[in-house]
């Protein structure tokens, strides 16, 4: 069972007003499940109390996200991406493998490796909490989304929401829906007569398509860099152990040299580990978040495009009805509805996309600065301990 202490959401810069503050104040990992304690502080009249908390699981977050996506009212908004499922599989497997044991590993090495894996587990845990928290906080900060009834229920309803995880049929259904969606998108973009009237959206579409692909790529590769770094840090464990045994066996001046070197590698290992985890948090995670967010933006564009296609179709139907002089009235009202919908969507989409850009820019700025500062900090610390060891080694006879 792991409990977590502090929230940290590095990826998103929120300027929420204080009328609704949401945070995940605690989290507990029980075997397969993680239970998040969602705490709300609000002076909004809707709520019964000013401060209250509930316990939620991952599936309930997904339910909330899907509820937003399926709600026509929010079609013109970027729905904050759902948090990823907590996945401790890999970490758990590694811990298990370590337990099964490699007899050639010394006790100290084993202890260190175990420590590393436990730290990894904890880091994954913290991350999943942060992802879930950011999702809620974005909702709370958005003027429209925060007023959603389901959101209130999610925050306030003391009991279990009885939302089970999607079964296979539903998962498959979701999968098929995605395929249909992309096919549809392809179709309507190829539709003759469908012209993008607005340069802004034309630009955004081209931009987002390319951006999303590239950020996904960058995210994957950043992950690999981070993992390679972690691997490197782990390599220092057996090296330090071997140097330590060499040192204790030596009877000449090499004794102190080896022992000092063993100590050095142990400290370098910790620093390399921190570099790896900082790269993970400041770079990988940020890229991953904006990969998801840009997908949400793409989804918005698709919905708008769909609305445009519907509008175009309604126009065509109206023309047809006028030529045939049959059912003109319903066709007219339908066309008007479509037009209104389309314009509504376009307006809010424009705002949303501009917000997306400024959110993205400020987040990148913050994270890149922090990344550079942390890299500098670690490099300076490494230099210091390396130099100290060199002085000690050169100094002795």
């Amino acid at each position, binding site marked *: 069972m792991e409990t977590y202490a502090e929230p940290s959401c590095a990826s998103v810069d929120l300027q929420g007003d204080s009328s609704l503050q949401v945070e995940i104040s605690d989290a507990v990992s029980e075997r397969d499940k993680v239970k998040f304690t969602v705490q709300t502080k609000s002076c909004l009249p809707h709520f019964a109390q000013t401060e209250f908390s509930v316990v939620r699981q991952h599936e309930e977050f997904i339910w909330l996200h899907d509820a937003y996506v399926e709600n026509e009212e929010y079609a013109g908004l970027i729905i904050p991406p759902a948090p990823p499922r907590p996945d401790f599989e890999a970490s758990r497997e590694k811990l298990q493998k370590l337990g099964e044991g490699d007899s050639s590993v010394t006790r100290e090495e084993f202890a260190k490796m175990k420590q590393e894996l436990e730290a990894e587990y904890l880091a994954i845990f913290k991350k999943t909490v942060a992802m879930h928290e950011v999702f809620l906080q974005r909702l709370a900060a958005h003027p429209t989304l925060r007023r959603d009834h389901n959101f209130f229920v999610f925050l306030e309803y003391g009991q279990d929401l009885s939302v089970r995880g999607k079964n296979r049929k539903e998962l498959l259904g979701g999968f098929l829906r995605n395929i249909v969606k992309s096919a549809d998108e392809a179709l309507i973009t190829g539709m003759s007569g469908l012209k993008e009237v607005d340069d802004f959206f034309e630009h955004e579409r081209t931009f987002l398509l390319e951006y999303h692909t590239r950020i996904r790529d960058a995210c994957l590769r950043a992950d690999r860099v981070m993992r*390679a770094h972690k691997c490197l840090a782990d390599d220092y464990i057996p090296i330090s152990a071997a*140097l330590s045994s060499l040192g204790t066996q030596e*009877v000449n001046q*090499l004794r102190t040299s080896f022992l000092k070197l063993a100590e050095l590698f142990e400290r370098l290992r910790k620093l390399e580990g921190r570099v790896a985890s900082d790269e993970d948090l400041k770079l990988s995670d940020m890229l991953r978040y904006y990969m998801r967010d840009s997908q949400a933006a793409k989804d918005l564009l698709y919905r708008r495009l769909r609305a445009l296609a519907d509008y175009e179709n309604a126009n065509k139907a109206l023309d047809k009805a006028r030529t045939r002089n049959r059912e003109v009235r319903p066709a007219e009202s339908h066309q008007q509805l479509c037009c209104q919908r389309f314009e509504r969507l376009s307006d809010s989409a424009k705002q949303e996309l501009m917000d997306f850009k400024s959110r993205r820019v400020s987040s*990148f*700025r913050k994270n890149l600065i922090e990344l550079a500062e942390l*890299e500098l900090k670690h490099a300076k610390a490494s230099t210091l301990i390396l130099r100290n060891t*060199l002085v000690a080694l050169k100094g002795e006879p």
Partner: protein
Amino acid sequence: MAAEREPPPLGDGKPTDFEDLEDGEDLFTSTVSTLESSPSSPEPASLPAEDISANSNGPKPTEVVLDDDREDLFAEATEEVSLDSPEREPILSSEPSPAVTPVTPTTLIAPRIESKSMSAPVIFDRSREEVQENIEEEANGDIFDIEIGVSDPEKVGDGMNAYMAYRVTTKTSLSMFSKSEFSVKRRFSDFLGLHSKLASKYLHVGYIVPPAPEKSIVGMTKVKVGKEDSSSTEFVEKRRAALERYLQRTVKHPTLLQDPDLRQFLESSELPRAVNTQALSGAGILRMVNKAADAVNKMTIKMNESDAWFEEKQQQFENLDQQLRKLHVSVEALVCHRKELSANTAAFAKSAAMLGNSEDHTALSRALSQLAEVEEKIDQLHQEQAFADFYMFSELLSDYIRLIAAVKGVFDHRMKCWQKWEDAQITLLKKREAEAKMMVANKPDKIQQAKNEIREWEAKVQQGERDFEQISKTIRKEVGRFEKERVKDFKTVIIKYLESLVQTQQQLIKYWEAFLPEAKAIA
């Protein structure tokens, strides 16, 4: 010359001279008093092998090293004594001018105890001046004024008959060489041939001959076939560096440095091809068979070790071997992962650049491109660090793993030597029994033959004993020298390696410091 059990010929191995021996003895008596006057000198004249073992425990903390050195003065080869490490300085500097004299003549204590080392006086005569200048050099901390470089690998020929030729450059002020700077072209099998010759001459009398770099059929085939990719250039570079280290270690050995084969290798423009070094040749297979036979024999020799020092040392080297192997495996993993990190960083740099291109916010786009550049430079850094990891750390370890194998081999030779002595004693006993039988049976002609045989084997027993004591002495010295070299070697390399790590970190600081303002400039 190689097969004989005479001490390795120094210089051009002139035949020994009895007159010189007498001179030597005189000098010896005159210096005994000098030695006895100094505080910690043990009794020089009566120094049988047992005393040496009683007083020394091999290379331990400094105080004991001093004693060990002192006893080593009584060992054979002058060159070794005088050209040894600066640790010897305390002994020499505490006794000013007489310090020079005890060094050389004391080698002749050996002739007193063992009549075998007859070439010692010759050494003494020839090398007196060299000893003088070498001691002065020693005072400056400059022990061997000889530098070897292996460079410019060049492919010669085509197809499967192609080979790489390396330039071997020697810079020296030692008078034994005709020039002070010269270079020759050698191929890999030449190096193997040199090692083979040196090993056959010196290994079995207890000298630790540095092993040559390993053959690699796969590696070489790639080069022959003409693959110009990075793995074959890496292979050639790895081999070049290994050959250089091999030669440097060989010339550092004072006895081997005197060897004519080594000199010929370094100096002469044409070298007869060493054909017996090929792995699959007849000689190669014979070597493999012999090695196997040796391994079996080693298991069956049960030696009565009268000297705890040897057992202790063998155990020490065994432990060291195991630990070094373990460390080596871990360092190899480090090299591998660092290369992976480098490749991944390069890939990320590319994708960051692409992302920067897509980004429509100008300042962020620029920052992302800068990030991509930083990551590209960092990739280079990782690559260079991986090279340092390998060439400094990993190769040092693998060199020493093979050197320790050579040390173990020398200990094994001592065991074989002992076995030979044992066998001679057993045979002598048998011959004596045979003689007794003949006496009883009263066959005069057979008795004479038996007596002859007894004399023959008595001599062999004596020789066996002398050889055994000689090899034991040599090994002690060699191990002492080896350990000193090892300490120096490791310390030097460790410092160099740490400095490379510092370099990398400093570069990282530079790159990130340059990037930080770019990130802050995002508006």
